[in-house]
Structures are given as C-alpha cells and as structure tokens.
C-alpha cells in the first residue's frame, strides 16, 4: 500500500494517560525533536490535581499538549488534531478537545473491561468499538502487547517492560510526522547511562513503534511539518516558572545584590523554589518559611539588610501576606512579590489557571498603599517581566508585583538565548555614607527627583535610624501623627509610584492596525491567543489592532492615546472583568468585556467570535 506524504502547516498533539504512563516525558521528547527541526512550538502540560489518583480513573489522567508548526505558533492550540490515549479514562477526559475528524491513537489494552469500568463508561461499553466516536479516525494499537513481544527476551520484568510503552507511542508518532529518532536515542543513552539493559529495551521499543508505522499497512498517510521561519539564532526551550527563577538570579547578579527567596510551598508557584534551590552556586539563598506571612516578612527583613528580597505564592498565599506588603510600602524598601495565579477564590482550582488576582495586586491592602504591578505575556516573557519587577523594586525602593499564572508558568516555548551583557543594568539606590555629617545629617525619608529615598542598611557607619509601620514624618522618618503630614506622605508615596511611568517603555500595538475600529486590549497570559486571533481577523479583512499591556501599574503614559485611536475596545480576561474596571476608571471608555472563568485559557475562536459580534465593518 502506498503511503502518501501530506504537508501540514501546524499540528496539535495531545498525549494523555495515567500519571505513571510517562506522558510528560513523551511530550517533552517530541517537543525537543520538533524544536531541533526548526518548528515553532508551544506546549502545555495538564497535571491531575491529585498526586497519585487511582490508576485508570479520570482523576488520574495526565496530559501534555504540543502545538508545532511551520508557521509562528503563539498558543498550545485550542483543539488537537491528534489525541493519543493510553486508557479509557484518558479518552473520556480529553475527547471534547479533539477537532472534528481528528485522529485518535488508542492503546487497546487500556480499554479492557476494568479500564472501562474505572473510567465509568456506561455498561462498560467500549467507545473505540461501539460506534460512538463516529467522525473521528481511530487507530487502535495493542501497545502493551507489542511492547511485551518486543522485549520478550530482554530479561526485564513485566513492570519494567510495561514502563517503556511510552517509547512505542513516541516512535510511532515520529514515523507519522517524519521525525528522526536521533535526539531521543541520545536522550535515552544519557538517561539510562550505565544501565545497558534499559538503554537496549527502550531503544528497541522506540524503533518498534517507528517500524510499526511502516509495516502495519493500516496507515496510509504520513505528515510533514516543515521548519518555521524563525529568526536565525540559538534557541532553548523555556517554561514560565523556570524563566521567572532565572530572571531573579539574573537581576541579583546584575544589581550586585544577594537574592533572598522567602516562600512557602503552593501550587503553581513551588517550581520557582525548586529551581532556585538548585542555583545556590549563584549565591542564592532560599528560605522555606513556616508560613506565607513569615516568607514575606523574612524577605523584607533581607531587603532591610541590603538583600534582594523576593517572595512568591499564589492567590491564597498572597492574601495572607497582605499586611506585610503594606509595611513594605511604608518602609519603602525593595521587595519583589511573585503571584503565579490560579483559579480562586479561596483554595479554588489549584491546578487550573485564572487571572483573577489583578485587583488584589492593585488594591488588596489596608490604607492607601500603591504597589507597581507588571505581568508576563508568555512563558519566555516571565523572564523579562520578573527582571523588570526586580529593576523597578530596586531602583525605585518599593514592593513590586510580578503576575504570572498557571498557564504560562507550566507552559513552554522556544526562547532565543540571550547573554548577560544584553540585560538592562540595575542600580540600587544605596546611600554614600560620606555624603552626611553633623551639618548635613542623614534623613532616611528624604527623596530624590524620582521621589525615591536612599537605601541605608544596618552596618552603614553613622546612619543608624529606625523604620516602622507607623506613619512617618516627612524626610526624618520619625513617628508622626500630624494630620497634614499624613496627607503629604500618602501623596508622596503615590507620586513615587506614578513617576515610575517615566522609566518604563511606552505602549505599542503588537499586531494588527495602528488605529481603526476594534482594539483588543489584553494583559497577562492571553497574549498568544489574542495575537493568533488578530492575525486571522486581519487576514479576513477586519480593522482590528492588538495592544498587550505588561505594565499594569503605573500604566504606560501613552495608553490612553492608543485606546482613543479605536472606536471600540474589547478586553478579554480570564476573570469576571478586572482590568476593564481599571481602564474604564482611568480613561472613561466604554470598554467591552470578554470573560472566561473556566480555569482554562481562551480558544482563538472565542476571541474571533467576539470581535465579529462587535465589529460592524470590514476593510474593503
């Protein structure tokens, strides 16, 4: 039978199976190989909320979605073209994500009566054979059986043999998408170094999977996804939390400060701690505190001593830290606050994504306590914006929020390797002890033209002073209950934050038209999907532009001017409408909300549909 080669622009594959099926590893390997072939990629892992949910159940399904293409890809894909399922539960929990006419590759052993029962298919009816999946292309392969046969004489036990099933899947998909095996062969040799039997068995199964495509005769089409038009250079793959961790180290090194990371484990922020704990040879100090409050207080204590104090959490933990943020505002010390947002309120949806903590970041404190806020647009942007948060904190002597979310924290994309000389400098606002004497005594809360005070730290000669949460007298910092002084201090602290607008980039139109009918105004992790939608809408002739705001407080100085160039403003947010309140409040524009609160990112089509509903005219 002849096999046809079909060229595809982009493909989305979703690997799904039990936590123990090696899904993340399979997805990761396919990603690396795709990257090496020059495809543009975006990935998103989907972990079960439970650590070890019972095998075979829907609660225990682990997923890895990979979108790769010969065109630029900005999201892990709305729906998948190919769904690889290791058991019935994996099919049940992901079938709604498969495109019409999409391909299902199913491990038939995972659809025995036990698995069907665990996945709660009524009457143990097998969806693969009962006709309920009409319209999809189903390839049923007894992966378990073939793997066992391949390793018949390997001398390995059944458990070890079954554990290499994922290599069969990988090998088969490499065949299907015309991918070479070399990178994964190298990976296996490295991973199992010194354990020749495991190297041999995994390679045998990988090749068995590849050869199966050639020999099974059931498969008539192979696909090819050519390399994308990506700017020349050296690339690496990066996940959001990893990018955040690296940014913190980079900012510490560039500012000459020592990084102190005070935190308490919480999903989905903990991975930043795991990364940083490995970077001790960069002088990083990680502090796993007794609770969220202690974590932020220790970080602020470190900043008082002259360190780069950083604390991180997710919504519930951020709520606990709130009082200390207010103290940071009063102290006027650097403090970087990382919030990897998740579904709320309360414990909410810990493993799902949401951007519903913006108002908490902007306003969630007692008293007038302005704090600058920046937000990352994508996994790699976590590096740039976390770095920016450090720069603003250190140079402007203030706590700064850096907002990420579960979607970009765990998602990955290629990142062109940068070198440290390309990073913006960070200059701490430290005092010069020689500037002061009896005639010109040190005043801890005297400000420069930026409205920023000098950073004196314990150990500095002759600058001993006291700081605290009580209102301070202007300049001297002594406790003051004076009515006029309080108003002055509130205004001065606000002015300091407002002036940061002079030290951040101006807003730009990311894609689409510079002025016209509809502006899509987004922030945070919706960047990729809005960009994808705008590109399609432009192709269809709509007058639509996209501005993505990464500096949320203060806002870029020209944002209002950009907004006013459009007739209508649509604001997609994964919340019940938060940034829209800010925009309406500041600029008095009747912005239209597009809100999704399902713990899931937007699909491109949802953005497109909204624009089409609002737009009245098309470019001729």
């Amino acid at each position, binding site marked *: 039978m002849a096999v046809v080669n079909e060229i595809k622009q982009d493909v989305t594959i979703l690997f799904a199976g039990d936590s123990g099926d090696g899904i993340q590893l399979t997805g990761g390997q396919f990603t690396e190989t795709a990257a090496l072939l020059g495809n543009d990629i975006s990935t998103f892992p989907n972990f079960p909320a439970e650590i070890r949910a019972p095998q075979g159940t829907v609660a225990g399904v682990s997923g890895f979605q990979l979108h790769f293409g010969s065109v630029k890809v900005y999201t892990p894909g709305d729906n998948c073209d190919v769904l690889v399922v290791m058991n019935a539960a994996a099919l049940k929990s992901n079938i709604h994500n498969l495109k019409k006419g999409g391909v299902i590759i199913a491990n038939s052993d995972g659809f025995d009566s036990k698995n069907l029962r665990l996945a709660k298919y009524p009457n143990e009816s097998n969806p693969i054979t009962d006709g309920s999946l009409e319209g999809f292309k189903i390839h049923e392969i007894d992966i378990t059986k073939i793997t066992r046969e391949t390793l018949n004489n390997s001398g390995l036990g059944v458990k070890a043999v079954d554990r290499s099933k994922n290599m069969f899947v990988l090998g088969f998909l490499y065949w299907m998408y015309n991918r070479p095996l070399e990178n994964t062969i190298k990976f296996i040799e490295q991973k199992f170094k010194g354990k020749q039997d495991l190297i041999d068995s995994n390679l045998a199964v990988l090749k068995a999977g590849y050869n199966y495509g050639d020999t099974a005769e059931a498969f008539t089409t192979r696909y090819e996804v050519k390399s994308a038009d990506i700017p020349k250079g050296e690339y690496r793959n990066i996940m959001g939390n990893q990018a955040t961790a690296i940014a913190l180290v980079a900012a510490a090194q560039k500012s000459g400060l020592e990084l102190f990371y005070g935190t308490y484990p919480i999903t989905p922020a903990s991975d930043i701690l795991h990364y940083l704990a490995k970077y001790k040879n960069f002088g990083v100090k990680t502090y796993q*505190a007794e609770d969220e409050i*202690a974590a932020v207080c*220790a*970080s602020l204590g470190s900043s008082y001593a002259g360190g780069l104090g950083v604390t991180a959490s997710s919504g519930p933990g951020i709520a606990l830290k709130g009082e*200390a943020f207010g103290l940071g505002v009063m102290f006027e010390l650097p403090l970087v606050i990382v919030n990897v947002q998740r579904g709320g309120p309360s414990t909410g949806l810990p493993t799902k994504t949401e951007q519903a903590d913006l108002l908490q970041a902007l306003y969630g404190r007692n008293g007038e306590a302005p704090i600058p806020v920046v937000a990352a647009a994508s996994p790699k942007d976590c590096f740039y914006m976390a770095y920016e948060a450090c720069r603003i904190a250190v140079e402007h002597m203030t706590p700064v929020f850096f907002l990420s979310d579960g979607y970009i924290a765990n998602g990955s994309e290629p990142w062109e390797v940068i*070198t440290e000389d390309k990073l913006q400098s960070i200059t701490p606002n430290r005092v010069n002890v020689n500037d002061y004497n009896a005639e010109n005594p040190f005043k801890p809360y005297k400000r420069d033209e930026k409205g920023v005070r000098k950073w004196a730290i*314990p150990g500095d000669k002759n*600058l001993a002073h006291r*700081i605290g949460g009580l209102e301070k007298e202007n300049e001297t910092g002594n406790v003051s209950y004076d009515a006029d002084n309080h108003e002055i201090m509130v205004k001065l602290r606000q002015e300091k934050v407002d002036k940061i607008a002079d030290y951040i980039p101006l807003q730009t139109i990311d894609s689409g038209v510079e002025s016209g009918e509809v502006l899509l105004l987004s922030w945070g992790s919706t960047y990729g999907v809005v960009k994808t939608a705008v590109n399609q809408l432009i192709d269809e002739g709509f007058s639509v532009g996209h501005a993505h705001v990464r500096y949320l407080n203060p806002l870029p100085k020209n944002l209002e001017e950009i907004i006013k160039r459009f007739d209508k403003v649509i604001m997609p947010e994964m919340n019940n409408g938060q940034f829209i309140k800010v925009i309406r409040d500041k600029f008095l524009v009747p912005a239209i909300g597009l809100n999704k609160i399902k713990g899931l990112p937007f699909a491109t089509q949802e953005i497109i549909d909204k624009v089409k509903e609002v737009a009245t005219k098309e470019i001729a």
Partner: protein
Amino acid sequence: MSETVELKKAKDYATDQDVKWCPGCGDYSILKQVQSVFAELQVEIDNTVFISGIGCSSRFPYYMNTYGMHSIHGRAPAFAAGLKSTNPNLNVWLITGDGDSMSIGGNHFIHLLRRNVNLNVLLFNNEIYGLTKGQYSPTSEKGKITKSTPFGSVDHPFNPLALALGADATFVARSMDRDPKHMREVLLKAEQHQGTSMVEIYQNCNIFNDGAFFTFTEKETKDDTVLFLEVGKPLVFGKGGNKGIVLDGFTPKVVSLDEYSVNDLWIHDDTDRVKASILTRFFDDPRQENALPRPFGVFYRENRSVYETELIDQVQNIISSKGPGKLNDLLKGNSTWIVE
C-alpha cells in the same frame, strides 16, 4: 596608628525621641538596663538592630540609638531571620510581648527557636494586652477578669519557658523588671550565647494589670516565692535561705533546711535539659500552699549550630565544589538548537 575612641555611655544608646510609655511602666527599667549593659559591653551602634512586632514593648526600637525596625504584629522573628540570613554579622535584639509572641506570633516564635537564629529575644511578659487597653493575654491566669472577660477567662495560659524549651530553644532564661542587677546578669549571659537567647522578663503593667508579679518582686513576699538559679549552686530560697529543693525521682519537693542538709539539694546545671524542663514547670500559683518557688536566671543553654551559619556555609560549600555560577550558562540552559 592609634585613634582615641571615646567610650560610649548609656545615654549614647538613647534616641532623641520622647519615650511614650505610661509613667511607672516596667518597660522603662528594661530600657535603662539594656542601655547600661550596652555601655558596659561598648556595643557597636552601627552594627546593632532592634526588631519588634506590635504592642507597648514593641515601641522599644524607637528609643534605642541603633538601627531598628518596628514591624507587624507577631512577625518580628520572621523579619529577623531574613535579616540575619542576609547579614549574619549584625547584633540583633528582638523585642516582643506576651500577646505578640505567644498569641498572634506563636508560630514564628517556635520556628525561630527551632532554627536557632543567633539573636537575643526579650519577651516582656505582663500577662495583659496593654496597647489595646486591657484584654486578657495568652499568659493571663485562668479566671482573669478583664475588659474582654468580665466573668473571668476560661482558657488555660501558656507557660512561655516550657513552650520555648519544647521548641528546642538553646538558651532559656527569666528575669524581672524590678531587679536591675539580676536583669543585667541575664542580659550579659544572653548576649554571650550563640543562638537564639530567649529571655522572659516579668514586667509590670501598672495601668491594666498592676501587681501581677508583686509576689515575686516585692520585699514582703519574694524571699519565699523566688528561686534564683546559679550554676553549680544548690537550689536554695526562703528567708535567710531556710528552704531548698530536692528531687525525688523526677518530682521536685520543697524541703526545710532545718531538716535537710544543703548537700541533699538539687544542684543547678544549666546544661541538663531534663532538669531544665522540670524547672520550667515550677509554675505554681504562689498563693497556693506548698507552691514551688518561681525560678529566675538561666534555666538552660546548649551549643547547637546556628541557622544562618548553616545556610551560608551550604551556599559557600556549593560554590566551592561547583564553582561560582555563570549567568550566561544559566541563560543558555542545557539544551539549545541553532536556527540557520
């Protein structure tokens, strides 16, 4: 080259700010003692930090001419841990009260002690909430009548030193505001200790809980209620030293020295954890018949590694074994590909 260094006096450790505690407050005496001990030790002003939480006692840093931080309620231990982790050379004093450390900051208090951060804790215990104007505290005795407990409190109080020892504190001591000489000795020992030195100070709140400790501090009663602990000395108390403590198994008993010889008494050993634990349980209501006397002095001390030293040593060891991290390598990662 020689330089004449002017000796600092107690008043050099005072700030120009008006002290705003109520007249007659026990805090004045503690402030004065700390300043004179500092003069005695010639403590370096620029290298010293006072950190406090919230409460009357927590205003203390404003009155000390050193670096200082008046933080948030109960959290001073957390600020101090971050401060010491970043600069272990600072001489840090943590000022707290019974509400601040035993109630809202209870969690941080025990974790500070377990980590053994090298600093001194002065816990001003007045068994009442003063700054909020007179509610009972977690160290108030059961049945305490206050504004928030007009019919008497129903909850059992904390025993701060037993709690500290239970959290593996490496230095546990008690003193009182009205005995400056004793306080001086305890402060000197606390300052010498490497690790968290936990000093409870009985402090009279003359407005909301006046006389809470008078049985221990006033001449008429103190001989029979106070037991001063001295290393290597028998546990003797009472008028003219007429009473002592013997250990019957693990049970302490008050005996009359008319019947017992001093040689039969418990000899204080501040490195004996089991005995220290029994001593912290000398917590009887002094009005009760045959009450055990309340001990003052250093109950326990032990040498255990200090948190910030461990933290910094680990970082240094990793730097020595792996070499200092190179930022460009970190930015590049382990696996890259070239697009041509």
